[in-house]
């Protein structure tokens, strides 16, 4: 190991300690400086480490938690970038903090969540054993550009890791196309036709309307959500690949989780998913496909799916108010639609708070809220007892709801997070909170304080 590498590790550790002492969290900053000193540092640290890398637009964090839980259940001591700092800087910090000053990481394996733009460089450096790609949807166009650019970033990254096994979402025509020109072994996962709800309407907006190979319009045998489903191109024959790990029957969707029937490489098994909503079923089957390819036994994967805890705004539960609260991070139209679909499927009344910021980490363009199907909320009528809008762009949310047909007399604007917390704590009905990323960072401490919890980097 070079002197430069040793110095970069020492710098990273020093900065991390300082940041913690100053209560600044410090998950990305130390790695950023260390990388300036030694750009090859992540590769040095990853040597000898079995890595499962997770990328894609939605579901990275939840999927990573399931994979990590499965590894632990199987007796593998895994490190993970749990704080959600998923750029190369955050990944580097996590590796360095688990390494000796000599660059030896004290774990055998790692579950790494990786930003889809960062995947271009991270995959080649880290040489993962397994790469899971969850899905691709339009997301933060001001930062990522078009969805096909994101796909190319991942493809370029994967070209530098021909030995990695790919766990790919078979239902996503964009993700599936990675297998078209890469030599890697692929494990496919998805929802089979038998699991799909035949009443699912085609999406109002599709991010993959036309064939990635020949640009003819896709036909669908069935739809799951967004552009996911049984796609096929009538022109060139590109179509959904049969899934090795598949949801094989209609899932039983509950308010706190789902019951699913799976076909895993031909074997029928049942599983409970520890978080509600269809998108978490995708996260579960993706994780099962990836960890079993990683060498973890299926029984551990199934245990993990039924027992994992995710936290940090991913359907995170707080003991707030008379009936509890769940926080559901929203970042883009596809993810937001999935949350809105979950809410419309609930029995009984509930209260909702929406928090929209437009800082760099949220995406500075808030236009995306107009692509999300907030019209679903106006169909709920009296069951939605109150909606409060908050955050830097609260009035944009107000307008979105007004034009979606909600009664404006029932929409409140509350910018003060302490007052908002107090209001939600007084709720008689379940509370659901949908913040964007930086709003989550700012609002979550208020919730924790109201429930007597701690900050995430101290946990």
């Amino acid at each position, binding site marked *: 190991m070079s002197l430069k590498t040793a110095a970069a590790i020492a710098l990273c550790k020093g900065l991390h300690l300082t940041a913690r002492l100053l209560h600044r969290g410090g998950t990305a900053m130390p790695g950023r400086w260390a990388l300036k000193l030694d750009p090859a540092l992540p590769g040095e640290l990853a040597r000898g480490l079995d890595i499962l890398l997770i990328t894609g637009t939605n579901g990275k964090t939840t999927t990573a938690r399931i994979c990590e839980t499965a590894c632990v259940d199987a007796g593998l001591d895994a490190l993970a970038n749990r704080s959600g700092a998923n750029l190369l800087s955050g990944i580097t910090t996590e590796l360095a903090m688990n390494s000796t000053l000599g660059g030896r990481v004290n774990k055998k394996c790692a579950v790494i969540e990786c930003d889809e733009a960062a995947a271009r460089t991270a995959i080649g450096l880290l040489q993962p054993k397994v790469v899971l790609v969850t899905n691709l949807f339009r997301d933060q166009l001001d930062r990522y550009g078009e969805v096909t650019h994101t796909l190319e970033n991942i493809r370029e990254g994967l070209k530098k890791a021909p030995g990695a096994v790919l766990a790919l979402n078979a239902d996503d025509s964009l993700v599936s196309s990675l297998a078209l020109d890469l030599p890697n072994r692929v494990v496919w996962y998805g929802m089979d036709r038998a699991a799909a709800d035949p009443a699912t309407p085609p999406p109002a907006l599709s991010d993959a309307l036309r064939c990635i190979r020949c640009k003819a319009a896709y036909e669908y045998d069935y739809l799951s959500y967004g552009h996911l489903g049984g796609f096929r191109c009538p022109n060139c024959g590109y179509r959904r690949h049969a899934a090795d790990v598949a949801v094989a029957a209609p899932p039983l969707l509950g308010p706190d989780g789902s019951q699913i029937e799976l076909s895993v490489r031909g074997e029928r098994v049942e599983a409970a998913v520890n978080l509600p909503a269809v998108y978490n079923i995708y996260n579960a089957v993706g994780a099962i496909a990836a960890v079993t390819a990683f060498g973890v036994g299926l029984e551990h994967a199934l245990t993990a799916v039924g027992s994992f805890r995710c936290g940090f705004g991913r359907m995170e539960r707080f003991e707030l108010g008379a009936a509890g609260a769940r926080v559901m991070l929203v970042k883009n139209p596809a993810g937001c639609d999935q949350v809105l679909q979950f809410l419309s499927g609930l029995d009984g009344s509930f209260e909702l708070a929406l928090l929209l910021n437009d800082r760099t980490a949220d995406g500075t363009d808030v236009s*995306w809220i107009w*692509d999300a199907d907030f019209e679903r909320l106006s169909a709920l009528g009296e069951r939605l007892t109150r909606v409060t809008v908050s955050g830097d762009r609260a009035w944009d949310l107000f307008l979105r709801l007004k034009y979606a047909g909600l009664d*404006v007399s029932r929409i409140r604007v509350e910018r003060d997070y302490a007052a908002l917390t107090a209001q939600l704590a007084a709720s008689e009905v379940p509370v659901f909170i949908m913040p964007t990323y930086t709003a989550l960072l700012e609002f979550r401490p208020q919730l924790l304080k109201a429930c007597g919890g701690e900050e995430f980097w101290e946990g």
Partner: protein
Amino acid sequence: MERSIHICHLYPDLLNLYGDRGNVLCLRRRLEWRGIGASVTEMPVGAADRLAEADLIFIGGGQDFEQQALLEDLHRGKDASLRAAVADGVAILAICGGYQMLGQYYETHDGVRCDFVGAIDLRTVGGKERMIGNYLFRCGDESGGMEVVGFENHSGRTWLGEGVKPLGRVLSGYGNNGQDGTEGVRYHNVFGTYSHGPLLPKNPALCDEILKTALERKYGKAELAPLDDSAEQNAFREIAARLRNA
């Protein structure tokens, strides 16, 4: 007499980048809230050409990936219909890619030229740097003279032909090309702009100006009843203030 406006949403399947459909929703709602009938026909790629029936045409922005499929469909006759609609004074709101499309051509920064509708004397040249961010402009008097906030995200630089008027003048941000201070185009009853996403909800005066243009063409004169726009004004004011203080 019962008044009504027929809106044609051209290429909603491909030109729908980031919230464009919010504009159609806004046009429709602001007609309905005033008791004016509103109907919307979506005309995706391959659909029969019904542009001649429209009182108001909306064209949004799109991704590069799908542009080829769109141009093939356009050059099968819809380009001629659009030229006729523009000449005939049909109210048209065209945004970003849809705005560029009404011009003569788009030339990539390495010189590949792509012919567009040619309804308006303007042309677009691709640049390397994207022009991204919230921006503020003031419309010309013929378009209402109001201030408008929007979000732009484009690499194309649009240049207006001689005598062609912009929609407005940039107060903060880039606009057509980041150089001459112009934003968008106002030609006959075409309102062209780079303000992508839902331009109209935060700019109700511009929305009403477009609706008035369509109603006047159809019924001779148009009085629009005032609406409670306090939430719209709040959304506008917060971003406008941020841009003025930047």
